[in-house]
């Protein structure tokens, strides 16, 4: 697969503050990379350096083989970029705005009109084409920003919080759009909405305090969750003590936590010792012993928990994470 974006020891300092601290990363065509991190982690600054808006203090960023400090205009031609907050010229209407972008992007003739029409259809802004952008709702503004980014069908798409502030339907739309376009592009999206990563990304990296702390498929990151492949069982309180004993006797079981549900049943949260699936074993045991169970479900583990653990883990934990990654 073709490497479209390569960051090598990319660093940005603002005075004494190191916003981005030596990030190495490469993104291939066909990948949708989720940039995760708490606010102020350096996600936007990294994106601004890749798009040529800020120049790196150290290190380099290459897009499609072109170094962004050597040929910024060349890089900008290959990138579609949605800045954070989707800034647009408020006094223009989407039609005039997209025409301006098409001019600057050097689209002309039939191709130009076709791209504009296609993009209007894709982001569904046909109804508001002649209203000033500043009078549009947040969702429409975001979509106009997105239209601007994808108008020239760029091989690299960089979207800074593309779904921030949208309602669930609009979020779903934007995600579908990203998935549709992903196959022939390299896409980076930044977000702090973790479900988004599971929904659209083929790969996720976690950044905090300017450093890259984890890099992997969303499923791989999930495996780091202590609750990955855990099993939750709901039983009647009468049989609870005996079941607890039986659960503890299973070798693959890690910890067993007991709690009471709202409907006065007993809940067992059983974690896997190795992270491997334990549901079949637990189910077989329950059946063998003849315990009645009203509910049994397996947990995937929450990306939130992994995220919190990695980003809050302090510098010692951070070091081991990077070593593992």
């Amino acid at each position, binding site marked *: 697969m073709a490497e479209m974006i390569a960051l090598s020891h990319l660093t940005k300092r603002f005075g004494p503050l190191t916003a981005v601290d030596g990030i190495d990363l490469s993104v291939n065509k066909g990948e949708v990379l989720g940039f995760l991190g708490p606010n102020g982690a350096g996600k936007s600054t990294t994106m*601004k350096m890749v*798009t*040529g*808006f*800020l120049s790196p203090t150290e290190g380099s960023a290459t897009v499609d083989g072109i170094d962004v400090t050597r040929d910024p*205009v*060349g890089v*900008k*031609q290959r*990138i579609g*970029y949605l*800045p*954070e*907050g989707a*800034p*647009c*010229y*408020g*006094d*223009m209407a989407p039609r*005039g705005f997209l025409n*301006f*972008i098409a*001019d*600057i*992007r*050097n689209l002309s003739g039939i191709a130009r009109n076709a791209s504009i029409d296609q993009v209007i259809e894709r982001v569904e802004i046909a109804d508001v084409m002649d209203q*000033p952008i500043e009078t549009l709702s947040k969702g429409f503004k975001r979509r106009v920003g997105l239209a*601007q980014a994808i108008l020239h069908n760029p091989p690299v798409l960089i979207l800074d919080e593309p779904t921030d502030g949208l309602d669930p339907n609009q979020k779903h739309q934007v995600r579908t759009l990203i998935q549709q376009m992903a196959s022939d592009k390299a896409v980076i999206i930044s977000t702090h909405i973790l479900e988004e990563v599971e929904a659209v990304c083929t790969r996720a990296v976690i950044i905090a305090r300017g450093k890259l702390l984890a890099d992997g498929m969303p499923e791989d990151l999930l495996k780091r969750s202590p609750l990955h492949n855990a099993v939750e069982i709901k039983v009647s309180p009468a049989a609870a003590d005996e079941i607890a004993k039986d659960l503890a006797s299973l070798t693959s079981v890690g910890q067993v936590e007991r709690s009471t549900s709202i409907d006065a049943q007993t809940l067992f949260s059983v974690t896997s010792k190795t992270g491997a699936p334990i549901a079949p074993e637990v189910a077989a045991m329950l059946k063998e012993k003849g315990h009645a169970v009203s509910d049994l479900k397996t947990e995937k583990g929450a990306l939130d928990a992994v995220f919190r653990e990695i980003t809050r883990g302090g510098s010692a934990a951070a070091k081991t994470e990077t070593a593992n990654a």
Partner: protein
Amino acid sequence: MRNMLIIAKREFKGYFATPLALVFIVIFLALTGAFAFYVGGFFTRGNADLVSFFGYHPWLFLLLVPAIGMRLWAEERKSGTIELLMTLPVSTLDAVLGKFLAAWAFCGLALALTFPMWITVNMLGSPDNGVILASYIGSFVMAGAFLSISSCISSLTKNQVIAFIISATVCFLFTMSGAQLVLNFFQGWAPGYLVDALRSMSFLTHFDAVTRGVIDIKDVVFFGSLMVMWLFLNVIAVELNKGR
């Protein structure tokens, strides 16, 4: 070049998307007229010329041109659109020149709309139209010089009011640098060549020369090099400040 014109076109249209263009042009026309007729004594002078009209242009431009220039970059930075503009495939020079040209063309339009003055004076007498043309050109070029100062200062701040006040002050210093008021301040201690240099920076001196109908190469070079210098500083300021 192509990108510069696209940016200029967008920017120029932008003036007319808001009441800004209308307000500016109406006030500019009203003030140029008022100064020429009431303060300059257009009728009582009894001469068929536009000296009383052009004589007040430096003072009007002092306030009105920074009002045009203040938004050029400060607004882009405030609203964040600078990030959009500077990640489009355009060079910083294209963007600076494009915006400057749009604003300058707008000043030119306002100036062109004072043509009834020219018609009036031609109906009342037979003025030297060569002098009037030279004065129009001089006035336009001077507006460009004021605008390059305003554009540069606009890129130093996100606040349009600050951009306006500082631009107007710098423009005032350039306008007045030939006047005794300013020169007295330096004459006591500064070496003679510095005082001469300051005197030669005066917009008034150069503009007066042009309005007498003489387009001297040194006045053209003066305004031209001033614009080049301020726009060059403008490019640097945009590069340095865009991310903040």
